[in-house]
Structures are given as C-alpha cells and as structure tokens.
C-alpha cells in the first residue's frame, strides 16, 4: 500500500475515533470499548510490524503487553513512583526484555522464534504467581488490585472519567502510530521488506538482518509495554488471567481479520475484534469457544484479511479525496 493511502486511511480512522466521545461521552459501555480499541489497535499494529514487515514469527506479543502492565503496576504500587513516570519506565523495561529475548532468539530459524517467544509467554504465568513474582510485588495468583490512576497537571485520568482518559490514550496512540508508520516506510521499512524477501539478498546489500530485527523488536516491545502500562492504570487491577489463551486469540483474530503485513489492516481488525469480544462477553466460557472457531474459519477462508476488499470498495471515494488535494 502506498504511503499516501496508508496515511489517509489512518487519518480517516483516527479522525472518526477522535470525535466519537462527542456522541458517546456519556455512555461508559461504549467509551470503554473505544478506549480498548485504541489500546489494542496499537498492540496489534506492533505485532503486524514484527510479523508482517520484519518477518519475525513472534508469539510473545501478549507477554510483552503483560510485562509492561505488571512493571508499571509494581513500580507505582511498591515504589510509589508516579504513574506518569512508571509508564515510561515500564516501556523501557519491556524494551529491554525484548532485547533480552531477541538476542538469543532472532538468529534462530522461524519456528524456533515462535516457540521461544511463546515459551516466554507460558513461563510468565508460573513466574508471576510463584515466589519469584511475589518477591518483586506481583501479588501472586491474586494479582495487583490497587493500581493508582495516572495524575497529570493535577488531573486524574482513571476509569471514573472515561473521556479524559480516552483523549490521553488517543494522544499516545497517534504518536505511536506515527512512529510505526515511519518505521514501515522509512529506510528501515525498505530494509525489512528486503529481509523478508531474501535474507541473503539483503545481507549482500549490507543490511544486517540481526541488527534490524533486534531494533524493531526492541522498539515494538517498548511501545507494547507502554500500552500495557497504560491499560494497567486504566483498569486499576491486574492478574495472570491476562495471559490466558483467550486474550492471545483475540489479538490473533485482529491479525487474521486485518491481514498479516497489510498495515493498517490490523487497526480495522482491532475495531471489529474488540467490539465482537465485548458483545460476546455475556456468553462466558462459550466466548473463547466461539473465538477459537472464528480463528479457524477466518484463517481458512480469509486470504489477506478484509482490508483489501474494503479498500477496493472505498477506492473510488479515496480517489476523490486525493484528486481534491
């Protein structure tokens, strides 16, 4: 997709998102969905950059999200660090963990990367519940229940006042989206596409596969951790339930709907999936059952996600916009 079209699609999407509180500001149910869409859209975009553009089979995206959330929660609860700083520190910590995981694993062949990152995910549960986690303040299997809300210039951003929190998240989302778009389209982006195409070819151009993969891994981990932290201060409590396969699958559905490497398809995927997941919430344990079935069916029948058909539908409209400029 061309840069112009990508930015236009994103602009259109975020403009619509930005004015949503004007209509639904009073309805907490819908505001909650909107905030979750913003958060998940960024997390899923990061995953798309990792999988679709850098060609890394990482299955650790939810793990990084949870690491960010827990890091910020622990810092602000146990060490009394103001959330504004703890969120940024959580991002840095997650980025470092990303480097730590990436160092041994990005040199490996594709499936091994998937396996190691997924093993990191699976190990987080016993880690956070066990004595090691309790020692650093994870709260064991109970989790952390009293995470302070974000305070900025004397304003409290919490789940009591959804509209201000929405705009805080919106602001961060726009910044991170810009970073991701730059990453995809800049020299890095070209390098990644070359890497995905053929590592030997890229290597001959002097592009070190490992270095760039590590860079993208660190940066996306940072952003993911940042949004995990944001989420922690939004909901005010955390538990290892966030690591259940249920959450992982929701993120995966966003990718399947959006199409891997079809950015900003995942953003559309996030809108559909978050809404669907909220609507299915009353079904209890049938929700993951249905989610699992949706993945199977979508992977089988949706080749490139739904963004391509949508763009084909919208292309006359977009052409009008482009021509008017």
């Amino acid at each position: 997709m061309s840069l112009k079209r990508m930015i236009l699609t994103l602009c259109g999407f975020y403009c619509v998102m930005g004015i949503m509180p004007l209509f639904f500001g009073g309805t907490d149910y819908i505001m909650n969905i909107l905030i979750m869409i913003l958060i998940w859209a960024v997390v899923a975009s990061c995953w798309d950059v990792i999988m679709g553009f850098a060609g890394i089979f990482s299955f650790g995206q939810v793990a990084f999200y949870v690491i960010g959330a827990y890091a910020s929660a622990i810092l602000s609860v146990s060490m009394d660090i103001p959330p504004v700083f703890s969120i940024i520190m959580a991002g840095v910590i997650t980025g470092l963990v990303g480097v730590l995981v990436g160092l041994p694993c990005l040199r490996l062949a594709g499936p091994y990367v998937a396996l190691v990152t997924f093993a990191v995910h699976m190990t987080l549960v016993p880690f956070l519940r066990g004595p090691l986690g309790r020692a650093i303040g994870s709260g064991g299997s109970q989790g952390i229940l009293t995470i302070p809300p974000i305070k900025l210039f004397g304003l409290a951003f919490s789940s009591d006042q959804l509209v201000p929190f929405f705009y805080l998240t919106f602001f961060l989302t726009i910044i991170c989206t810009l970073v991701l778009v730059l990453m995809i389209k800049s020299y890095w982006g070209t390098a990644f596409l070359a890497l995905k195409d053929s590592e030997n070819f890229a290597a001959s151009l002097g592009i070190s596969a490992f270095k760039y993969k590590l860079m993208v891994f660190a940066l996306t981990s940072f952003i993911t951790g940042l949004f995990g932290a944001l989420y922690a201060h939004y909901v005010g409590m955390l538990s290892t339930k966030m690591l259940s396969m249920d959450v992982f699958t929701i993120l995966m559905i966003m990718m399947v709907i959006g199409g891997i490497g079809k950015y900003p398809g995942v953003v559309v995927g996030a809108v559909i999936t978050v809404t669907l997941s909220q609507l299915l919430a009353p079904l209890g344990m049938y929700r993951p059952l249905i989610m699992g079935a949706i993945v199977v069916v979508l992977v089988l029948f949706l080749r490139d996600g739904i963004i391509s058909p949508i763009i084909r539908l919208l292309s006359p409209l977009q052409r009008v916009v482009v021509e008017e400029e």
Partner: protein
Amino acid sequence: MFLEIIEVFTSGLINGSVYALMAVGLTLVYGVTKAFNFAYGSFYNLGGYFAWVLLIPLGVIGGYFSVFFMAIPFFFIVGYLLEKVLISPLRKYDDWEMKVMMLTLGLSLFMDFGYQAIFGPRIKSLPGIIEGTVQVGEVVLFQQDIVIFILSLSGMLCFWWILNNTRTGMAVQAVAQNPAGAQIVGIPKDFIFAATFAISTMMVGFGGILLCQKNFVDPMGSTDIMIKAWVITAFGGMGSIRGSLYAAFILGMLEAFVGWYFGMIHVQIATLTLLLVTLAIRPRGLMGRE
C-alpha cells in the same frame, strides 16, 4: 535420601518415556510436513476424554484393553481428517507456516473450551490400569508406573519399526529428507502428509490415555503439555527423532528433580532456561540438521 532420589528418578524416567512418545510424534510432523501444530496438547486431552467416555459413562467391556484397541483407529482418522480438512488447504498460501500456527492455536482454544462445554470445567479422574505395588529391594514401585513405561516404550518401538520397515514408513522419511526427491520417485506427498498427522495424533492420543489415567483429565491442561512437547522438540532439534528421544528423557528428569528439590512452580522456568541456553549454543537444538 537415597530412596527418595530413586523415586524421583523413576518418576522422571516414566514421565520421560511418555513425553518421548508424544514428542516423537510432533517432531515427525514438523520434519515431514513443516507444519507447526499448536493444537497438539488438545489431542492429548482428547485421549484422556476418549478413555473417560468409554470407561465411565459407557462402561465398555474389556476396560483399557478395548480403549487402546479403539483408540488406534479413532486417533488415526482424527489426525488424517485434521490434515486433509484444515491444514492442506493452507499450503497454497505463501505464508502458510504462519497461517497453520494461527489456525491450530485457534483450534486448540476451540477444543479446550469445547471439552469444558461438554464435560464441565472440573477435572476428571480415570480408573488406574492396574493397582498395587512391586518391591525391589527397598524400593517400592507402582505397578501402574511399570505398565506406563512398558506401554510407551513398546509404542515407540512399534513406531520405529513402522518407520524403518514399511514402504509407507520409508516414504515418510523420504519426504522429510528431500520433498523434491520424494516427488520424483512418485511418492504421493498429500497422502504422506495426512498419514504423518494421523500417526502423530495416534501417538499423542495414546500418551494422553497413559498419563491421564495416572494423573487426571484437566480441560485446561493442554497448553502445558503442548509447550512441553514443543520444548522437547526444539531442544532435541526439530525434525530429529533421536534428538527428541534424548530430550524427552532429559526433560523428564529435569522436571522430576527440579520439582522435587525446588518445587513444581519452578519447573517451567527451569525448562525455559535450559531451552534458551541450548538454543544459544546450538541454534538447531541437540541433534538438528542444517
């Protein structure tokens, strides 16, 4: 102290033998079809529920003998259909490896919660294959453990024999070693892919029956098993049957001793550490080939 170590050792050996049975099936699938089956653990649970349904509500005649007898064709057909219906249509895509991972992950979620919906969220226990103990010197062994060990070992020997002495077994190895060469000599790749899935599903189902009757059937236990099987496979070298055999026993022992000395909660962390260190030194596992 010494007696305790012997006990821990035997439990490591027994778990190792069942893990070997399951990991060998998984590594075979990867080696031959290059597909990454993330639903493997859910088929382990299918083994447990299969035995439970036959033994408890249906009260089938012949007990475990009939269970094993019926499990073989059942899991063969399930595995065959899995490949034909869900995996092989994905092969036409460029990024089919990623799609297979996603599909099987979704399938595993579907199956796990399907078990909960059908059988309820609580764990189920199976009657033991055999009760009683054997005393060797001062060491007391459960007859059940001995039966598990013998059955999983004979399952593996059976598998080894099929792989090396039948035409289809040789064809399976041929596809793993050189898919293009296999096509040239006229081996029908599609059939071999499906047959490999069928064999591996048979092995994990068999392992599921063996371990579930020792422990219990836990609808949420599948991810744990899946990760174990995958770690063993990666640790041993993906696609290397001998490697995963060694890795299974090493991991069984590690698990038994770490669990005994430090507590079960540390087992997964120890396992991951071992995997990361191994892959840092040998990026293709213990016995992986270039």
